[in-house]
């Protein structure tokens, strides 16, 4: 029980590490996912192919392999970056493929008439997409995007297994110090539950505020 009180700073550091990773990687995933989703519905063929390859490859890559490749592969091109940045890159790119698919199916839920009406008003592709379709798609993609962000938070544990700047990684330090390993894990589990439930609550709020039942 006193594992938590005696090592509050270690846990706090790990907890904040996970939060930080999740926030930065989510931003990257949302931006990349948005770009890839617009590629996949674009009128230009090569964009569609690029988007499709991106999504297909990343969705079928084990995240551990991706971590392995980013963490040890990129430095070979002379790139010197802290571990956290590599972790954000791996997590963000991986999740972007799932976000892209969520956005794309969201775009498909917007009735065709909306796009047709926009076009008949003379809007271009980018105007139709950004001012008519996406704002509506946004509402129906809140739940799937939310669950992808939760998945991202959980996947950040892989970063912790490689290094220590994360909640799961704290178990190594505490284990070496000789604390009860069962309790160590109980508090790690509680930490993850706090994070996932917070994200869940946030997206529930967003959904209540803007979501529509279709």
């Amino acid at each position, binding site marked *: 029980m006193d594992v938590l009180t005696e090592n509050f700073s270690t846990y706090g550091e790990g907890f904040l590490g996970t939060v930080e990773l999740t926030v930065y990687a989510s931003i990257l995933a949302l931006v990349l996912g948005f770009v890839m989703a617009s590629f996949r*519905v674009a*009128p*230009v*063929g*090569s*964009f569609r192919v*690029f988007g499709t390859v991106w999504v*297909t*490859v990343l*969705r*079928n*890559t*084990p*995240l*551990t*392999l991706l971590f*392995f*490749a980013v963490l*040890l*592969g990129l430095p*070979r*091109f*002379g790139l010197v970056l802290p571990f956290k940045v590599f972790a954000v890159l791996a997590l963000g790119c991986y999740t972007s493929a*799932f976000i892209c698919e969520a956005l794309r199916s969201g*775009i498909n839920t*917007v009735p*065709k008439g*909306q*796009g*047709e009406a926009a*076009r008949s008003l003379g809007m*271009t*592709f980018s105007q*139709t*997409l950004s001012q008519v*379709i996406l704002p509506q798609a946004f509402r129906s993609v809140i739940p*799937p995007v939310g*669950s992808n962000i*939760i*998945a991202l938070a*959980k*996947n*950040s*544990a*892989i970063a*912790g*297994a*490689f290094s220590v700047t994360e909640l*799961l990684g704290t*178990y190594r330090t505490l284990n070496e110090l000789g604390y009860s*390993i*069962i309790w*160590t*894990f109980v508090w*790690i*589990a509680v930490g*993850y*539950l706090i994070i*996932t439930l917070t994200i*869940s609550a946030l997206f529930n709020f967003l959904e209540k505020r803007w979501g529509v039942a279709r």
Partner: protein
Amino acid sequence: MKALDHDSSALYDIPGPKTERRHMLYGVMSTVLILGLVAWVLYLLFDTGQFTAAKWNPFTYKGIQELLLKGLGNTLKAFAIAAVLSLALGAILAVGRLSDHRPVRWVATLIVEFFRAMPVLVMIFFVFVALKVQPLPALVTGLTLYNGSVLAEVFRSGVNSVERGQREAAYALGMRKTQVMSYVLGPQALRAMLPAIISQLVVALKDTSLGYLITYEEFLHAGKLIASNLDYDLPFIPVVMVISPIYIGMCMLLSWFATWVSKRQQRNPKVEAVDVAPAEPGTLLPGRQ
């Protein structure tokens, strides 16, 4: 490339001759850009000496190939065991969640929700480090608890998505609940759920690579052993080039199988009584996908 008149057609007009030329220009430009990017990466690979004989030489030895194949075999072994056990656990938990007894339902719900909210890696490490179990059973336990819980939700929503009339008709014929489940609802739900089940198995296959982190001697572990060997000139990039197509290929084959099954099912009259299954399992809180 004329076949643009599908779902995305609502976003833009069928291009006229001018637009088509403009799109062609964009297409060529972006293709050149992408090819340039690929060429740059290739140049970097050559420049940093990733294609030297020293780095690729190890792969020509039988021992190394056998090591990789053994790793691949261990990956598939972990996957097979985890898949079978997850399906079994999923079925048990789904029965629990559909039970008429409230305590049973509560316990099953609690288990399912807890294991879906926990990172699968935390469970694997808990079993491995805290319960001091061997790597393979630890990996399989973690994967089973997580995927079993997700599959329980898939099964449950499958059974619930069978048209109400089927259930009512079966009860009206005097069938007991077990009979209704196993003769009427189960078979129909299973067909509709097959794509979702296979998609979840892809997740399990991908997650076997987590075994690498607890020193289970699977495919990635074999790759790392070769990649981090100072005698082989640290052939890291070659290892990634060899193992990732195989990993991605296996997962894609399985994903592709799921798509194929789901397309076949849509044409199958036997599943008409069931709403089309969601492609992604458990959109409520799906966790790792």
